[in-house]
């Protein structure tokens, strides 16, 4: 059974890969992987990644650096090989997810640890630039009223009330170390019940706001954090993997001027900024307008 499934998966992946023609370098417009020419910026296939890639592009362009955008590529399994073969030169990444892709057995969770391991494990020819304090990671969130009622600020504060509270999260949390299992071993938290919903999606949010659950796993840059006044509980024991936004770039293109522009972007970007900008993306504002507004606010463009 398992073998058949794996074989089927491999087959499907092979078809998907050949369908996208990654092997043939369809994304390369110039030489690719050379120090000459424009920097090709890629992104994953979801809005936040596209937004950050757009910010990188606008910031570099405003500083007189030639860039080409190749956004919306797909998942990590597609764009990391594209980075390696020079089809793209630069992509915004999430540090924890990238590290797990590079080394699925890693135990690092705190920001500094994760970034250090990425530096050590990135394939030859790729470098991680300055990570941003902005993170899109799993957080336990509660409603404002719940936070006030139990005076909650950190995940640890939940310990004495956990048996009155129901936790909601994606089904894989049930057994995952970065989920229910880890909450128990690392924090000693046993909730009254765990409801398997979705990964920070509409079901989880709806359940949190309507009261089926009191504590929810949501993404730290979810616009609902602000629009619904949710309180993110601080993960003092670093159970959840750090997900700092980190530019990953082809070494050949990492000139000093590029490095300094991207370092400026990373330093200025915060999780709150991302919440605000994701809200505008959800409202269907134009990505380059959002990027321009943010860059101007932070004086990153002349």
């Amino acid at each position, binding site marked *: *059974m*398992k073998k058949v*499934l794996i074989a089927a998966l491999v087959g499907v992946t092979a078809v998907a890969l050949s369908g996208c023609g990654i092997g043939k370098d369809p994304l390369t417009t110039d030489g690719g992987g050379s120090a000459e020419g424009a920097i090709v910026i890629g992104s994953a296939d979801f809005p936040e990644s596209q937004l950050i890639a757009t910010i990188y592009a606008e910031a570099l362009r405003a500083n007189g650096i030639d860039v080409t955008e190749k956004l919306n590529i797909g998942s990590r399994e597609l764009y990391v090989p594209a980075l390696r073969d020079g089809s793209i030169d630069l992509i915004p990444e999430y540090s924890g997810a990238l590290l797990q892709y590079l080394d699925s057995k890693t135990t690092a969770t705190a920001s500094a640890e994760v970034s250090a391991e990425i530096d050590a494990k990135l394939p030859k020819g790729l470098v991680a630039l300055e990570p941003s304090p902005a993170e899109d990671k799993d957080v336990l969130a509660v409603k404002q009223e719940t936070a006030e009622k139990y005076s909650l600020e950190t995940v640890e504060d939940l310990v004495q009330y956990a048996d009155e509270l129901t936790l*909601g999260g*994606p*089904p*894989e949390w*049930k*057994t*995952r170390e970065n989920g229910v299992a880890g909450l128990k071993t690392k924090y000693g938290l046993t909730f009254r019940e765990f*409801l*398997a*919903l979705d990964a920070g999606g*509409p*079901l989880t949010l*709806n*359940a949190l*706001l*309507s*009261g*089926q659950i009191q504590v929810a796993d949501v993404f730290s840059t979810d616009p609902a954090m602000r629009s619904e006044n949710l309180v993110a509980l601080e993960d003092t024991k670093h159970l959840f993997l750090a997900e700092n936004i980190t530019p990953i770039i082809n070494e050949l293109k990492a000139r000093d001027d590029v490095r300094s522009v991207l370092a400026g972007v990373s330093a200025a970007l915060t999780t709150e900024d991302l919440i605000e900008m994701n809200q505008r993306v959800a409202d269907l504002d134009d990505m380059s307008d959002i990027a321009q507004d943010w860059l101007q606010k932070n004086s990153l463009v002349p």
Partner: protein
Amino acid sequence: MINYLLDGSHWTGPDGIPTLLVQHLMYTFAALAVAAVIAIPLGLYIGHTGRGSVVVAGLANSLRALPTIGLLILLVLIIAPSFPNKLAYLIPSLIVLVLLAIPPILTNTYAGVRAVDQAAVDAARGMGFRSMRILTEVEIPCALPLMLSGIRSAVLQIVSTATVAAYISLGGLGRLLIDGKAQSDYGQMAAGAVLVSLIALVFDLGIGALTARVVSPGITRRDRKKKSEKPAATEQRTAVPEPAPI
């Protein structure tokens, strides 16, 4: 998959197979009961009177086209704010299952009643039967094979679709499918799929056996084979006279 089923720890606790199985059966029976209470009387009324068949048949058939998961999530998002507990998930699950089960029961019931030989109905009326007695003593027994086959397909649909309840945090065998997928535990998924198929099979055979028991032998003509030596007698017994031209 075999390993999953043989592991003793998977047979106990709130996520154990017996608990999930019982939950699954509860969803199935609850949905079937509600669907039957709605669809059978409505189907009998339409079949008996011939009124509203176009409208109701059209509605019932369009119900079949509803995408279950989409409807389920929509209902949860609408209903959840009014029920700050698990009812917020139970009610939508039952609604989608009931909506799925109504069309086969309803259409088969009224089609079964409509298909009853008019001569038999006329004969009953000639014997002085009132409308209700014609329905219960002539039309329903004659329509029973079709009605039961409608219930049979409804049950099969409910059993297999009740797995969506797990999508919105409830139990049932869908848990094995959803959790197995989320945890990349294909053995667990396969175990869930096999168990669902097994229940479906048991129900199918059960209703098949029930049909054989409750349907009058005169309708199924099962006795024909047994009495094959005397075909003439059988012919006579089941033959229905041509209705007199009006």
